[in-house]
């Protein structure tokens, strides 16, 4: 790609960016949130038409007018947000557009078989005939990856494919990426996990604010340099966080207590105490029931057993509203579907929860709104810092920050964060972790869910381990990653661990 420029109304997303991708390499595209990575990818695949510049494929100039054309030319892409059709089956999502046929019609048995094979390649075992929307977002992400590798392609583009995957899934993915690379496929990879980038990539290109910073061999660029190239200044903030994460055991009053809370088909009844000022981490594999647990606490789903006690009095959870009223906030992992209201502005999204709690007739005054917006735009470094921008137009990471800010605005007593650092760049991630620590210090209880175990271990005062939709253990904050991993993956029979 040569001299690519692209402007959206009000934003110059890309300015004169050059980018090269060779066969047989894994090329990491690096940059902060909003640097223009996804936009560059979408220009490559024909979603956007560049204002200037050209795209060359194997030496020939190409101009795709739709992603379909790019696909036909051998470019297979996983876009950042899960871009699949949730109403179709898993098999269809993987193979639609290149389905096996028989007598002119789609051959469904063959299709399901193919899909199951592809899924098995990345270690997923789900029914290909099930409907996609019945699966959690992480599984959907795996399906998207399956779609991309289901065809023979020359170029494989992966825009933050790992943001909600856990270590096992990531390892699987990398294994396949290596195989493909060795077969000569050119792979473009975007991730905010530096470990992953260093593990898999051969070369990297760094973007900052829509401009090219440079292209380097991974082996020649160390982390510090990479980070300073990405953020454009020396890092210091980052180190501060590494230290900030000292753990302490909290012995304050119990804020929220779950007694035998459970929901059939979602999570087995569990007990849980969360104290004010405490950070409780939830650890478990994909599908272990972390999200379900969190949704029960928030009343997003109705529990069919047990009860929830807040401040010593039982709380009858009729839905999110009563949870919010009791000071509980829940930041969903599915920011597109359950989190943000994409067609509203940053400002409206920020105050939505607060406003909803006050009721429509008592609007948050313009002044308060502006000061809140101002505060969080800077505190979380949301870009563009234009409160009237539609959330839909923000980069993935910035959307995540807006969602987080919405709940911070309500000043909750218990903040449930389900994958809050998904798709967030390294600087922002550090900020958020620091924020959690600060909040806890100020007395807010935090329930922290993350696929990144390291992160959980680092900031949690106590870790609750889930497996197969059962709570199997509680560890205190001093535990090491290995200890947790052992519990998570360990014995196949939960009873043994529990007893």
């Amino acid at each position, binding site marked *: 790609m040569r001299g690519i420029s692209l402007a959206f109304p009000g934003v110059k997303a890309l300015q004169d960016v050059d980018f090269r991708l060779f066969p047989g390499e894994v090329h990491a595209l690096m940059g902060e949130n909003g640097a223009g990575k996804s936009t560059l990818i979408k220009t490559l695949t024909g979603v956007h038409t560049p204002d200037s510049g050209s795209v060359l494929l194997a030496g020939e100039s190409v101009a795709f007018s739709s992603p379909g054309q790019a696909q036909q030319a051998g470019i297979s892409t996983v876009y950042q947000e899960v871009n699949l059709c949730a109403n179709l089956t898993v098999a269809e999502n993987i193979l639609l557009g290149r389905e096996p046929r028989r007598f002119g019609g789609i051959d469904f048995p063959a299709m399901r078989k193919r899909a199951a094979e592809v899924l098995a390649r990345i270690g997923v075992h789900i029914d290909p005939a099930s409907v996609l929307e019945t699966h959690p977002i992480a599984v959907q992400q795996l399906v998207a990856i399956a779609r991309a590798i289901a065809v023979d392609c020359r170029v494989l583009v992966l825009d933050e494919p790992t943001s909600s995957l856990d270590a096992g899934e990531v390892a699987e993915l990398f294994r396949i990426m290596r195989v493909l690379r060795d077969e000569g496929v050119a792979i473009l990879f975007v991730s905010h996990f530096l470990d992953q980038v260093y593990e898999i990539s051969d070369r990297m290109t760094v973007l900052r604010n829509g401009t090219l910073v440079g292209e380097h061999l991974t082996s020649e660029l160390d982390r510090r340099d990479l980070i300073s190239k990405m953020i454009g200044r020396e890092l210091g903030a980052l180190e501060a966080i590494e230290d900030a994460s000292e753990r302490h055991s909290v012995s304050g009053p119990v804020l929220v207590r779950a007694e035998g809370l459970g929901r059939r088909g979602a999570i087995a009844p569990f007990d849980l105490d969360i104290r004010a000022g405490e950070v409780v981490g939830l650890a478990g594999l994909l599908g272990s029931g972390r999200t379900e647990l969190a949704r029960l606490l928030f009343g997003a789903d109705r529990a069919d057993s047990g009860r929830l006690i807040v401040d010593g009095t039982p709380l009858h959870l009729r839905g999110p509203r009563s949870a919010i009223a009791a000071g509980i906030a829940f930041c969903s992992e599915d920011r597109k579907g359950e989190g943000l*209201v994409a*067609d509203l502005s940053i400002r409206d999204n920020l105050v939505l929860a607060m406003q909803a709690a006050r009721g*429509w007739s008592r609007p948050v005054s313009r002044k308060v709104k502006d000061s809140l917006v101002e505060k969080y735009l800077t505190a979380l470094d949301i870009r563009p810092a234009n409160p009237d921008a539609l959330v839909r137009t923000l980069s993935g990471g910035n959307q995540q920050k807006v969602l987080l800010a919405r709940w911070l605005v309500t000043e909750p007593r218990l903040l449930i964060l389900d994958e809050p650092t998904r798709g967030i760049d390294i600087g922002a991630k550090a900020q958020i972790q620091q924020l959690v620590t600060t909040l806890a210090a100020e007395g807010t209880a935090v329930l922290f869910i993350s696929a990144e175990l390291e992160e959980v271990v680092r900031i949690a005062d106590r870790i609750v381990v889930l497996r197969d939709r059962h709570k199997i253990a509680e560890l205190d904050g001093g535990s090491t990653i290995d200890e947790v991993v052992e519990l998570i993956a360990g014995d196949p029979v939960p009873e043994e661990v529990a007893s």
Partner: protein
Amino acid sequence: MKNRLLWPILALVALLLLNLVVTPSFFALRIQDGHLYGGLVDVLKNGAPTLLIAIGMTLVIATRGIDLSVGAVAAIAAAVTCVHIGTSPDAGTALAGMAIALVLCAALGLWNGFLVAGLGIQPIIATLVLMTAGRGIAMLVTEGQIITVNNDAYRQVGAGFVVLPVSILISLAVLGLVALTTRKTALGMLIEAVGVNPEASRLAGVRSRTIIWTVYVFAAVCAGIAGLMISSNVSAADANSNGLWIEMDAILAVVIGGTSLAGGRYSLTGTLLGSLIIQTLTTTVYTIGVAAEVTLVFKAVVVITVCLIQSPKARAALSFRKVAVS
């Protein structure tokens, strides 16, 4: 924002100019018995009911809904009021009748809201029930007869003038009120949120059901008032034809005004323009003497032209061609 409304305004102006060309006296205004009289006034007066219904419809559509029952509700309001008034010339009777009618309409709105928000039935089919049955109810009230009344107070609603037609004043007042309430309170934002992403709104603690319920009640009350205007304009309630197909006009007005049927962001100003465009179109047909059998083709051509003018893509395609030619 301004840009978005520029094209509908241009379309409206073009339509008005067409009238001026064919009928030079179209813009002429004179004072007749102490009120304004002229072609433009007619457009405003006759467009008032559609505008009013379209305002209610805008909010319903913003929540991803649709209300097909407004026409029937209008007919019910007219029927109830006129039957109540009967032969009485009293202002009091007229007021009481209108009050009863509007309370009834609010109840009908509650019913729609119940089906949509309470039972979770798809809006189009939920309101289809009242669209069908409602007209039956209106005819039940009038026993299928056209109820003629002779009541000056009632006549004011649809045919009265305070310099301008009372009906347009009412509609504009409602428009202003809605604009004010939705902008000055958080209602507008919450309505949009529910329309764009109901699930996310629920998880943010928005009372989506109450909001949906509210917009259907409001739409029904608007429809009720519109029904009063329509029947008061001719001093008669015709259960069968009052408000017939007005739901289509209203939806069209909303959509021409730039609000998407998929819910979410809405524009009240757009709706105002949309309603005016539709009414001007109808009036144009009458004034420029389009033959009855060509009327529909003419309407189709105008509607599609208006939409093409508004569509950025169509304009881009057109200007591209111009550039290519020159």
